[in-house]
């Protein structure tokens, strides 16, 4: 409760209690992407990888977490950067119930979100419980350069 809204610094990006729908997922992805480019000096491939992986976690929350209930609930995005270890950890969580392990309704056009997250992040873990789902992704060797601020604004 003390943590609703946004906090934004070089070591932390936090947006909690965002409505878990497609439009908010797109908006949140955009804001996260701005934060990433502002504080980190990453090559375009790494930026793409991180933003896409985060998008897929948000998209799953928006699409699946509250599909069994009438109105979508909340999702949360937290990014923490460990300056010493140079590790970026991103956690996307919700209080819903994913229904994606539903083998019967397997559709060829679906189901690439989790393989994408696993391919794009250095490590990925997904914890599901009756209380909700938490996706945690880590990237190693993430270089945060003070100059990144000027570089990003030059584009």
């Amino acid at each position, binding site marked *: 409760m003390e943590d609703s809204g946004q906090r934004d610094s070089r070591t932390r990006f936090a947006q909690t209690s965002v409505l878990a729908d497609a*439009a908010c997922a797109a*908006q949140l992805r955009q804001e996260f992407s701005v934060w990433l480019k502002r504080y980190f000096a990453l090559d375009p491939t790494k*930026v*793409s*990888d991180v933003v896409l992986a985060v998008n897929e976690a948000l998209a799953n929350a928006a699409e699946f977490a509250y599909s069994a209930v009438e109105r979508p609930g909340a999702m949360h995005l937290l990014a923490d950067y460990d300056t010493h270890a140079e590790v970026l950890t991103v956690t996307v969580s919700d209080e819903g119930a994913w229904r994606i392990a539903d083998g019967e309704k397997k*559709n*060829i056009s679906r189901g690439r979100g989790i393989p994408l997250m696993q391919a794009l992040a250095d490590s990925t873990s997904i914890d599901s419980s009756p209380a909700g789902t938490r996706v945690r992704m880590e990237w190693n060797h993430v270089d945060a350069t003070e100059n990144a601020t000027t570089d990003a604004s030059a584009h």
Partner: protein
Amino acid sequence: MEGAAPNSCAIEERRIDSISVVAVAGVVDMLTAPDVEKAIAEAAKSSPSAVVVDMTEVEFLASAGMGVLISAQDELAPAIKLAVVADGPATSRPLKLVGVTDVVDLYATLDEALTALTS
């Protein structure tokens, strides 16, 4: 593209001889993927020999957009060939990573795609 919303997507279709080219620009995510799906279905109605989805100007491609390519391939084959043009960290890289390119033909440029499809 100035003034365009950061999360929007622009789609244009044109015909080059017997090939229909669906040019997509901007963001292809769960919000805009249905528009791309409709545009491909519309392009296929005029019975082209092939539909080329040109993603050269796509800056963000989510799995929702990849799913559209896979289901289009499934629906159009074998009568109509489907090809995708993409080259970059935000497009061709994830398409290769999850194996979409095992199913859908990928070309780096529109010229390469047109050459391959007309030969």
